[in-house]
């Protein structure tokens, strides 16, 4: 069990991913940037999965982050990507802190459904608000980077590097958290809440932490996605969007952090190419792919990568 320290693997990951900006064609760089942004949201779900719950409503924060960034950019003329990310993250953190304690006493399908209901309420509200575009949504201009306003390929590259940096930092922090004492308590709670409560730890607190981290990551992911995309609409909070996030999380499993981002990229590629080659039956192709993944990889991609524990009893 020799492990490189987290920061070393983070630097390696950053260099490898950043090198992509030199070789990837434009469309792929965009696809990767989107996939990584969505991967951040999924990483939040993975954090909750470690505690035994799955949010079917992460679209709430993805959408909230994206709308916050767009409204701030459009009403106050803020275009700096760092500032926008910070503001959206702060808003999502605040909302997460409100809903986190509320949701922390729900488990299983009820947690999934209540989180879904919350995101559907946002979806419904935004759809009704025609003064901010209603169902058509809003556009947001290209971001600037501390005063630098690139266009074309440099813009794509800058955005991509930005996403990569955030992904690597968030990934490393989550890895540290997963391996920490709190992280182990989360895993224990997934197994046996009663035990954890009778050891004197609050299951609800742990649930709340994980939910709030998920909210934060969801908001950051949504902000980056909207800046890359240039457009946000209430669909960001629709249940099918959240469903995709859950799918990526399940595809990745909860063992490995890099697997989350690999899974996100795989899903984007599969979707894009099935769209192109089977325009009439892409949903069928996607559905079959989903089933194959669930059947063939019960522990997720991460279980392929991570050392497998001896479980023969």
């Amino acid at each position, binding site marked *: 069990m020799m492990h490189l320290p987290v920061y070393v693997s983070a630097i390696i990951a950053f260099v490898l991913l950043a090198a992509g900006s030199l070789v990837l064609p434009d469309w792929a760089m965009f696809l990767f940037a989107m996939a990584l942004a969505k991967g951040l949201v999924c990483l939040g779900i993975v954090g909750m999965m470690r505690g035994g719950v799955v949010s079917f409503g992460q679209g709430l924060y993805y959408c909230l982050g994206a709308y916050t960034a767009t409204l701030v950019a459009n009403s106050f003329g803020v275009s700096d990507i760092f500032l926008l990310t910070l503001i959206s993250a702060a808003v999502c953190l605040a909302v997460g802190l409100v809903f986190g304690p509320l949701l922390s006493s729900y488990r299983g399908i009820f947690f999934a459904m209540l989180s879904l209901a919350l995101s559907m309420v946002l979806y419904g509200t935004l759809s009704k608000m025609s003064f901010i575009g*209603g169902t*058509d*949504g809003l556009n947001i201009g290209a971001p600037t980077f501390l005063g630098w306003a690139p266009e074309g390929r440099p813009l794509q590259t800058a955005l991509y590097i930005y996403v990569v940096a955030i992904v690597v930092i968030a990934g490393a922090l989550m890895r540290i958290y997963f391996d920490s004492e709190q992280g182990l308590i989360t895993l224990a709670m997934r197994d046996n809440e009663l035990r954890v409560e009778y050891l004197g730890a609050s299951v609800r607190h742990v649930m709340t932490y994980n939910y709030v981290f998920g909210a934060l990551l969801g908001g950051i992911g949504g902000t980056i996605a909207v800046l890359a995309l240039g457009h946000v609409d209430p669909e960001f909070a629709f249940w099918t969007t959240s469903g995709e996030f859950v799918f990526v999380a399940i595809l990745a499993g909860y063992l490995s952090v890099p697997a989350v981002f690999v899974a996100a990229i795989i899903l984007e590629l599969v979707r894009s190419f099935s*769209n*192109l080659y089977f325009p009439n039956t892409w949903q069928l192709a996607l559905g079959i792919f989903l089933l194959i993944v669930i059947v063939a990889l019960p522990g997720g991609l991460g279980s392929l*990568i991570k050392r497998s524990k001896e479980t023969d009893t």
Partner: protein
Amino acid sequence: MIKKHITGALGAALLAGGLAGPAAAQDDTFKIGVITFLSGQAAESFGVPAWNGGKLLVDMLNEGGKLPAPYDTKGFGGMNIEVVVIDEAGGATKQVQEFRNLVQREEVDAVVGYVSSGNCLAVPPVADELKAFTILYDCGTPRVFEDGAFEYVFRTAAHATMDNVSLARYLKSRDFDVPSFAGLNQDYAWGQDSWADFTGAMKQLYPDAEVKTALFPKFGAGQYGTEISALLRERPALVHSSNWGGDLQGFLIQATARGLHKRSQVVLAAGDHVIPQLGNKMPDGIFLGARGVNGLAANARGGELKELTDTLWMAYEDEYDTFPVQAPFRMWQALLGLKTAVEKAMADNGGKKPTDEELAAAMKGLSWDAPSGRIEMMLADGHQAIQPNAIGTTKWNEETGKMELVDVEYYAARCVNPPAGIKSADWLAQGFPGAECD
């Protein structure tokens, strides 16, 4: 760090598979990316009929000599037309991604697409960023060019304000008494905007009419029992709806069964496309438009464009056993506009395949004939089309067993569309300044 290697290898393998995109189009072919609904609710009413019509046109153009002049030349300026079709379902995020893929991976020469106004708002900034020539062929929201300006993006169909202004004018010209009216529209931007446009136009033409309930059932609701009860209770003289597709069919079936059309005049902003499916289940005496002189209204019009209209009509009926409604007409006006622009650009550049810049320059302010009438790129600095419109009344012909459109009124493009330089909402609020009606 074994996991890094494996993930790296996996990524690389996927990438290698993914990056090997098809080669760029040859100089003797013109490749267009077509995005339209192939699944979901808009597939049946718009996406599929539009592309059914488009396919016919592309085949006829590639063969050459199948259409009346000036469209009797082969392909686009002699180039063969090649098409990549993408499903529009799946939301704006997916569409922006697919747009990039079409332009950068498939290297299409032009993109023609988008029914959903959300997608029409999301795509143009990207099109400009990529400098990719793009035609929005169907969507209705005025916001595309009223809230922004785009170099490479054109819309070859009039925006939705026209539909509701025409309806109000139709009521007025037929001296229809409207003491009160109510609305039932789908709960998303299209329905909300249509209702706002209709009430705006009515305020000018029927300032005393009382506005009763405005219902916005969920998109795809299917069940309108409660809404119909509300409309029956309120007894408005007129019920406005911009519903389309399954939502419109469901509403009409349920409303007709409960006699709503006998109590209130029903007016439909875009109702023509359900006629082939509903047949005599569509009650007589409904006022409806087709978002342009499309479908039955175009067929009844005759005149100079009869030959072109008949070409579409007959080819479509031959192939699909039903007559073309609004969607294929709009696809034709987009593709014929593209053909005109390509050929104009080639005349200017000495016959080479035009670049996106040359195409955009040629398209700007262009006008051309389509089965739906003269299309003029009049608004938004030559990027937004206006076109004539028509409203008619449904009447079932027992002898032929077909639904007909009677008492059709045709409106000149400049009568029901705002002039350049004014937003449609302002144009409505100010009482249609600059409207040129015959």
